[in-house]
């Protein structure tokens, strides 16, 4: 008996159990079962991380090992990267459960059942080694996500966010399935290693491989909120219940990018070898666009949760750059960034949830000054804002360092600036909100934010609002502490580095799955240096200055006004394309596939 199915099967079983017994169990017991389940998954996944550093696990469901080297069953291929991601997923789910201990009334146990199934879907996505199985977990994750997003169905916002989320993500999933079917027609296999081996030997550099790649990748990039597939994210995250936002921003979106990376390295890397440079260009373009659009969107919001959502988009751009470099060091950087960013962002969403709980609003202007009564939340949020800038010793600082290191090696140093701008805009926006809400600073000039949506929100809790129960702020505190602590651990950074090397080792993966032999290339010892130490501090300083200027725009006089006009110029088209209308999003989706696919084909031809 092996533990490999545990992270998926046990949460599913627990969800079924909670639903079956929902009439009988008291709320606290339900909470307890849910917490214990996610904690046990966390333990098992940490165990996987520990074991797989030497030997990744290949697990054939039903015992259907390959026949004559051809896989007829479904496999989980658990390597350090997948296991680590699954562990991170369960950690955040645990945090979300603790946070929701005193949180909104649960309808029997349905909320917990949804969250547990969500957990299982995300773990399955991280661990699977089969293309169609990946699609199944992706859909499971989306279905649970949509239901959780619209959970507060008595309000208008969550419903609209959920439908935008559901429609765009389902459309993306079908496109991915189309790509998977195209691959199946050529290779007659669904196992990633088998498909990859077959493509590399039979059809290297064939056009249809490029098209299948763009289809599959576009589908998952919808989840990963890449421009121009990102629209749903801001809508859904702005309105989803806070514990759900923790998971959406903290890890679900990142899993979309993980799926692209996993599929690229297992299935396509061999066959697309001749086009590697073009693929790199494509993902760098996507990453830069996403980082900038997200940053602009973030700074122009007044609705705190929507602001944080746009910040996630911007950071997804940075992670896409990290993946897109197709370099092990940069991939390790992206992975570290996922950890650091996920924890900080989760903590910030918790702060937003606490504000919503106490003051019935997450609107920057409505909340001006009222935060003085919640100074601990203010401190948490300030730390989070600084962390978002990538200030040294936060997880994302190490991530950014690694990515920038790789950029310098490839002679693309100018992209450092994009990462810096992303940090300045997102951290500046959060600092601005922090200063206005918790310090009461800032001129009362709401016209600045003219055009930004003001979505009505209701409290998510019952009971007295003037105290914040410890179960709410503790997860935020722990996550922030972990974000600093975890990244400082050198063994962990080395482990991620070697995980990234293993993930990119195409041959090693195929030998492992198809022949059952461990034969990974040796991982070169990476020397760590942090070229961006001072730059990150500078980023935080500029972010603070930008926030101050946004609070007191009048201080710079007429020159300042002119500058405001320059800064606001990109806002008009920005607001025009973020229309909140599902028809527009679908049009952008189709256009995006054609544009990126066309780029890939024309450059490759």
């Amino acid at each position, binding site marked *: 008996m092996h533990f490999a199915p545990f992270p998926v099967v046990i949460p599913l079983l627990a969800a079924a159990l909670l639903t079956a017994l929902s009439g009988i169990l008291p709320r606290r017991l339900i909470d307890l079962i849910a917490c214990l389940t996610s904690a046990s998954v966390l333990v098992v996944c940490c165990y996987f991380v520990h074991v797989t550093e030497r030997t990744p696990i290949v697990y054939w*469901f039903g015992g259907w090992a390959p026949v004559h080297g051809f896989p007829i069953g479904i496999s989980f291929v658990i390597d350090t990267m997948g296991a680590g991601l699954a562990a991170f997923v369960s950690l955040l789910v645990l945090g979300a459960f603790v946070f929701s201990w005193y949180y909104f009334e649960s309808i029997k146990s349905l909320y917990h059942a949804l969250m547990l199934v969500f957990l299982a879907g995300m773990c399955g996505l991280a661990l699977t080694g089969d293309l169609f199985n990946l699609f199944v977990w992706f859909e499971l994750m989306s279905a649970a996500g949509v239901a959780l997003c619209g959970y507060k*169905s008595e309000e208008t916002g969550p419903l609209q966010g959920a439908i935008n989320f559901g429609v765009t993500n389902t459309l993306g999933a079908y496109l991915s399935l189309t790509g998977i079917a195209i691959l199946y027609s050529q290779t007659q296999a669904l196992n990633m290693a088998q498909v990859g081996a077959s493509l590399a030997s039979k059809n290297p550099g064939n056009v249809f491989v490029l098209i299948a790649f*763009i289809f599959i990748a576009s589908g998952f990039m919808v989840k990963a909120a890449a421009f121009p597939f990102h629209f749903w994210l801001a809508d859904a995250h702005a309105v989803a219940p806070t514990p759900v936002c923790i998971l959406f921003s903290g890890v679900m979106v990142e899993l979309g990018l993980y799926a692209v990376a996993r599929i690229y390295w297992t299935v396509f890397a061999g066959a697309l070898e001749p086009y590697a440079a073009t693929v790199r260009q494509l993902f760098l373009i996507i990453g830069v666009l996403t980082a900038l659009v997200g940053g602009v969107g973030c700074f122009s919001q007044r609705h705190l949760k929507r602001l944080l959502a746009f910040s996630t988009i911007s950071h997804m751009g940075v992670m896409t750059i990290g993946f897109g470099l197709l370099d092990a060091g940069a991939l390790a950087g992206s992975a570290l960034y996922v950890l650091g960013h996920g924890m900080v962002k989760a903590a910030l969403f918790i702060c937003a949830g606490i504000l919503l709980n106490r003051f019935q609003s997450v609107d920057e202007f409505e909340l001006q000054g009222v935060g003085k009564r919640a100074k601990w939340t203010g401190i948490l949020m300030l730390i989070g804002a600084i962390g978002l800038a990538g200030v040294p010793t936060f997880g994302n600082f190490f991530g950014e360092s690694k990515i920038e290191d790789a950029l310098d090696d490839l002679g693309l140093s100018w992209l450092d600036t994009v990462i810096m701008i992303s940090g300045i805009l997102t951290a500046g926006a959060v600092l601005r909100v922090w200063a206005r809400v918790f310090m009461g600073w800032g001129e009362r000039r709401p016209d600045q934010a003219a055009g930004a949506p003001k979505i009505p929100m209701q409290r998510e809790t019952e009971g007295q609002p003037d105290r914040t129960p410890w179960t709410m702020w503790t997860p935020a505190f722990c996550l922030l502490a972990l974000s600093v602590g975890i990244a400082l651990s050198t063994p962990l950074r080395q482990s991620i580095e070697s995980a990234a090397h293993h993930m990119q080792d195409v041959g090693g993966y195929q030998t492992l799955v198809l022949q059952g032999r461990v034969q990974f290339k040796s991982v070169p010892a990476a020397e760590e240096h942090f070229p961006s130490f001072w730059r990150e501090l500078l980023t935080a300083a500029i972010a603070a200055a930008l926030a101050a200027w946004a609070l007191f725009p009048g201080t710079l006089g007429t020159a300042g006004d002119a500058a405001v006009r320059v800064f606001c110029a990109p806002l008009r088209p920005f607001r025009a394309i973020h229309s909140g209308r599902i028809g527009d999003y679908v*049009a952008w989706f189709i256009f995006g596939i054609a544009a990126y696919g066309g780029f890939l084909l024309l450059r490759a031809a």
Partner: protein
Amino acid sequence: MKYPLRLGLFLVGAIGLAILYGLAIARMPGEHESLYGRLINQLSQPQQHIRDAVTAVNFDYRGFDTLGEEFILFISVTGAIVLLRETYEKKKEEQMDAITPGRAVSQTDAVRTWTLALTGPTVVFGVYIVIHGQLTPGGGFQGGVVLATAPLLIYLGESFEVFKRVTSTPLIEITEAIGAGGYAIIGIIGWLAGSWFLQNVFPLGDQNNPSVFTGGTVPAINLATGIEVTAGFTLLLSAFLQQTLADRGDS
């Protein structure tokens, strides 16, 4: 965004997408024998004593996919109930009073007799399809949906109250959870008794004289799926039906 702009964006994209799709199609092999499919077709009967290769793939070789699929159904039903819950929880009592008791449509006795007379055969037909999954086309999923339409016939023939009694939500919810959980538990039995999750550890039965019990765990999983799908679709249909009827009451 203005509508013409949206349409233009889409048309440009659609032409591009069509070209991409077309290029992919042009390079696809025409009719050919698939290696994966042939292996399964050849193996399913000797290995698993299952005559319907599709059922063998669904519930055995790729049974883990189907577990995920069952839970997609499970969670969508839960999600739909959560989304439509106003009628379920908060306003339940008021609305139950408000629903005008009585017939669904003004039926004649002939209609009633016919619809009620159909209920029995529908159930028998559904059960037949469920349990013959590994022998003939059909299985837990197809039969389950057929079974889920039986309560609707009761609604058409009788009244909403009888329908309500038949589809009494907590009971069906529990049944659904048992179906979905049962699938996982059968998998876990294989995990504990053999060594792999979803391993086929039950006796396979006589290969040459297949019955509804041949195939080891497959008939069991099939049954669990049937239960889950029946309950799931019943819940979905009754949730939507209640939405429609609940409103009729208070207008």
